[in-house]
């Protein structure tokens, strides 16, 4: 049992910049806990001779040579931007702090 607390969920929601209501905190804490405890069963079978891995296939060193490839045209790049100015992405104020 992993027991994800309400506070844990609130913290994660903040890090992900998600607005979550009090009711949702309870709901998600329960749901996420079910997911985590399901995945935690892996630990039951993982013995010392089975190292942790992040890939199903044991591959290493997949690389490419240092060669140039095509770029997008700046018009295409900015086409999906909510706002652009002078060829750059325009984003809202980053910090709410005075100068």
């Amino acid at each position, binding site marked *: 049992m992993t027991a994800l607390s309400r506070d844990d969920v609130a913290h994660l929601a903040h890090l992900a910049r998600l607005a979550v209501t009090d009711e949702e905190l309870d709901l998600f804490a329960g749901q996420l806990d079910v997911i985590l405890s399901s995945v935690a069963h892996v630990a039951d079978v993982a013995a010392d001779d089975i190292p942790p891995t*992040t890939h199903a296939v044991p591959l290493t060193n997949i690389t490419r040579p*240092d060669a*140039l490839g095509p770029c*997008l045209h700046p018009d295409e790049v900015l086409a999906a931007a909510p706002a652009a100015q002078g060829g750059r*992405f325009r*984003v809202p104020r980053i910090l709410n702090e005075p100068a």
Partner: protein
Amino acid sequence: MTTTSEITVDDVTARYDPVIGLETHVELGTMSKMFCGCPTEFGAEPNTQTCPVCLGLPGALPVVNVKAIEYTIRIGLALNATIATWCRFARKNYFYPDMPKDFQISQYDEPLCTDGYLDVMVDSEQFRVEIERVHLEEDTGKSLHVGGATGRIQGADHSLVDYNRAGIPLVEIVTKPIAGTGSLAPVVARAYVTELRELLRGLDVSDVRMEQGSMRCDVNTSLAPKGAAAWGTRTETKNVNSLRSVERAVRSEMIRQSQVLDEGGRIVQETRHFHEDTSSTTSGRSKEEATDYRYFPEPDLVPVAPDPAWVEELRAALPDSPSVKRGRRQAELGLSDDEMSWLVNTGALQLFAETVAAGASAADARKWWLGDLARRANAEDVELAELAITPAQVAGLARLVADGKVNDRLARQVLDGVLAGEGEPEAVVASRGLAVVSDTGALDSAVDNAIADNPEVVAKIRSGKVAAVGVLLGSVMKATRGQADAASVKAMIAQRLGVEL
């Protein structure tokens, strides 16, 4: 500012022991980016060097640039570090628009290189700077902050982002805490970055141009009361983008922290920003909570496991270290240890060597760079490299003196002209009319007049008071507006008066 300038580093280290640490970011000089084929060239129009991978568009997958791995391993080897036999990239999550993906691919607990060192010389004393780690990541985009008074993020109304830089391979070199340097701490910090820059330049893995941001430093500083067992709370100063600023950032932080501690205050662990104009730091993003990047192994990349045979090949092909090259160069240029370390630490060795390569003698190069030019750089508070004169021009100036076309005094005026942007030394001589008077007719009559106008001085000289010749010399110099060669004037007077001078 007025109060800080009254306290010196020596005042600080009389009561506190500083500990410093440096994190240096270096953009690698690969042709293409870390995980895609976009070019890395500096200065292109915004967002013209981007593609679905570096923009983080859905479905795009990164592939590691093998050259970036090679360069990082070479840096690690040159820093005497251990190269990992197996390591992974990690995803660093954060909300900040400089990465379009909302994460940066970096390395976390498995860096490519660990436990190295770099020796630096300060005042003929060697300091070993231990290296904690060297890891590989991707650079972020570049933001312009608009609407604030200062162009800084604080107070800005909105920001404009260019992702050309996003995804350029970036190496981060982190030192272990450097203790025991006392009042030399600011100079050791600078010497370390200078030496590191030389090393990277020698490896040809980056153009290491601090002014263009391809090499950037974060400087950690803390103070503890003298003899205390525990280290003090550190601050991290960002935005330190020249060698001189590295030294100043440490100095200004030492002085600021000592004032806070003297008044019974506490140092807040925070990020601070360095300001070139005032050489001081201000508090940065203190209101943000402690960062929680939720690193996890990058699922879109497989582990990197450098073949030990390849690593040995790279080790065998490493160039001589900067200190070995310097030893050779010092002998070639005939420099003393002190001169050499001064040139190295001011970043002027290259200028010096190029001056000699352009035809000047080592003595002349030393005379100008360590003399007049050093004084001027100091007076204007700039680096030697920032003076508006090239090594070829210094060599040209030395040649003018050697050929007897100008004397030392005129040469200084030629220097003024070159530094003022009036062109090559020869052109300055012509435009300012500075050539030594070699028109023997004009010189002859100036000497004759001086002798005729000063009969009592001539009598003195003839009676053995040879020092009186100064009066005649002065008179000739005045008549030729200082443009005669003193030695030849003296010879002419001696010949006319039939005396030994």
